[in-house]
């Protein structure tokens, strides 16, 4: 009896997944995907699921699973969600396939700038751009008569005024959680001061004047943030905004939608977006540009790849974008940029423009070194020069181990 019930429940849940409501065709090949878990991916995978026979796995820890899962033969997933940071191990191991013939077959609606080309071959289809840019409480800045800051000096000047007025707990919020987030703050700031990450021989160039400037700016931020800023990640900063505790932050564009989510936010309609502040006058915005998109595994049959790509195109179509216009800064046809996208577009179209986050093996190593060595500087245990030295040494050690030096 019990078994029968269980079998029935299983059958019903299977029926649920193979419902194909708004899909233009019925998918007959069983397909699986592994992507990050934020709002835009949910929208895309839901749209794909409408075609049936599709199982989506949304996991913020996808980056640790993906390389091994795609290396298996046959690959454990057919479709992968990547960004310019996380595509590197897949490209390096050759576990994703070139998509040119599939683009020719199914990709009629793709924009030319969605095709991520490596060495002339299309390796991924981008669906959205993401960047860290300035979010601020437009009501507070208007009350205090502050113009929208465009440089970090202006951000600090505004923070001084806000702190004096005492309208929020902390004038600035920052994603400085020790590790990846903190390293990303440096990766944003450093090119803003004109720094380059690597020399021609793959040694790192962060131990430089631009590095010192970047560290000084990060340290200046600390005076205006929550004292526990070294544990605050994107979600924490987003919540601080939603609860009206901070007035400004250089935060991910993908978090903008949450500010107007009435079930969570007490500041609906009060948070405005502007381009990422510049570090030096006339310089590029102190941030990096990211894209998110899909890849198709190499270790699957051509039929599966064909079906997977067709399904992905169904997920990335105009209907999905129209239904989820505010979920991301889409690159797909049919996207109407709203107020929330203003900052990201300003950042992406600035001149000189912010650099894309480099997708290289070395960058992964440097990112880790930064994440491990920066906290000692911000807690005051080590001065800036010694910190840059330590970063350089940590990078050199791991780069030698990884074989890039």
């Amino acid at each position: 009896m019990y078994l029968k019930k269980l079998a029935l429940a299983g059958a019903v849940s299977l029926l649920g997944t193979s419902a194909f409501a708004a899909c233009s065709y019925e998918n007959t090949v069983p397909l699986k995907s592994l992507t990050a878990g934020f709002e835009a991916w949910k929208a895309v995978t839901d749209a794909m699921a409408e075609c049936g026979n599709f199982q989506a796995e949304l996991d913020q820890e996808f980056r640790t699973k993906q390389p091994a899962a795609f290396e298996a033969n046959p690959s454990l997933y057919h479709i992968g969600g990547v960004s310019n940071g996380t595509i590197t191990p897949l490209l390096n191991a050759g576990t994703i396939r070139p998509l040119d013939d599939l683009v020719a077959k199914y990709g009629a609606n793709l924009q030319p700038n969605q095709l991520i080309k490596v060495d002339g071959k299309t390796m991924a289809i981008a669906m959205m751009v993401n960047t860290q840019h300035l979010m601020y409480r437009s009501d507070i800045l208007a009350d205090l008569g502050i113009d929208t800051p465009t440089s970090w000096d202006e951000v600090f000047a505004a923070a001084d005024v806000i702190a004096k007025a005492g309208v929020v707990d902390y004038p600035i919020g920052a994603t400085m959680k020790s590790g990846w987030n903190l390293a990303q703050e440096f990766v944003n700031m450093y090119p803003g001061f004109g720094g380059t990450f690597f020399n021609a021989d793959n040694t790192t160039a962060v131990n430089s004047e631009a590095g010192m400037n970047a560290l000084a700016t990060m340290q200046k931020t600390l005076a205006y943030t929550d004292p526990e800023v070294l544990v605050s990640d994107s979600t924490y900063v987003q919540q601080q905004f939603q609860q009206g505790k901070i007035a400004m932050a250089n935060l991910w564009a993908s978090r903008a939608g949450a500010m107007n989510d009435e079930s969570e936010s007490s500041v609906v309609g009060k948070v405005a977006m502007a381009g990422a502040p510049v570090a030096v006058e006339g310089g590029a915005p102190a941030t990096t540009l990211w894209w998110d998109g899909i890849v198709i595994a190499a270790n699957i049959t051509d039929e599966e790849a064909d079906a997977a790509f067709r399904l992905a195109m169904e997920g990335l179509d105009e209907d999905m974008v129209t239904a989820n216009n505010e979920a991301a800064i889409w690159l797909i046809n049919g996207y109407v940029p709203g107020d929330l996208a203003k900052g990201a577009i300003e950042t992406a179209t600035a001149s000189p423009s912010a650099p894309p986050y480099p997708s290289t093996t070395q960058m992964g190593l440097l990112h880790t070194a930064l994440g491990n060595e920066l906290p000692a500087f911000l807690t005051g245990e080590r001065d800036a020069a010694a910190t840059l030295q330590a970063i350089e040494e940590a990078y050199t050690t791991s780069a030698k181990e990884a074989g890039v030096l």
Partner: protein
Amino acid sequence: MKFKTFAAFVGPSVFMMLLFIAAPLISVFIQSFQITQPVMQQIEVETCTPGFLTQTCTTEVKTVPIIDEVTGKTQTTTAWVGFQSYQNVLQMDKFWEAIGSGQWRDILQIDFWKALRFTLMFTLVTLPLVIGVGLMIALAVNNAAKSLRGPVIFVSLLPFIITPVIGSLSIYWLFVGDGILTATLERWTGQDIAMFAQAWTIELLMYFYRVWHVAPFAFVIFYAGLQTVNMDTLESAIIDGASRFERLRYVIVPHLMPLIIFIALIHLMDCYRVFDEIIGFRSQAHVISLQWLTFDFLTPDDAGNRAISRAAASAMLTMVGIVVLLILPLRRTWRDHKGGAH
């Protein structure tokens, strides 16, 4: 017992230990002396990434691994490197430099030594507290009225059944900037409290959490031990005029000594592997432990690199540390054991 019966009972356990403990240990030991790396080549690649309206294409020289034509996997080489990974973890040159120049604090700038300092302190500070608090609860319960014992035992055991990582997360949520307890304390004292902004408050919370979590374990063992205290000896001690404290000091504690050693052994082993607190409290910026260091080496970055050799070296060093810590209590148990055989 017949040897055959003995072997039949012990066999499965020995097999499992060999498969899941000895074999991985040997493999880690070997890996700590090796470095496996992909064969890299430098090629010129044109990469196109989307701007918002147009595409930006850049041509640059990239260092990428060579993919084997036959197997379709990246080519790797494995080299014996001696103690290089250990040196990379220990950074002895910096260590001696710091000692030579008299800048002792500089030693704590090196990840391994920073982690070792905390791990040792954590282990040694919580050990007497766990034994003391556990013994106190056991004595209290033993002296409580019979009708109360059941509920009291149940309540005191609760912390022990909480999953460690969940427990540490709860403490984090209670004490973080806008947590319930912090908010209450702030309202009460009128001061801004930030428990996770400096190392020493984080460490205090960690000690507190670990003692709270493990004391019930010590309590259960001690409580069982208290049931076997020889009543005759206790009564004669009372007749001799021994005070309550003297009875504890000269009768009960010596009787419980083997159990105290047992708890110390288990606690030393457990605490030296402190990990959950670091993750739960997000304390990496201020406080790290040896086990976390190994975990950090093993975690792949966005580009898929992981420092396997250094992780192996760090794991071996952790094991050496546990062995050194356990030598003292183990020697004592061994002596007692031999003494008991006479």
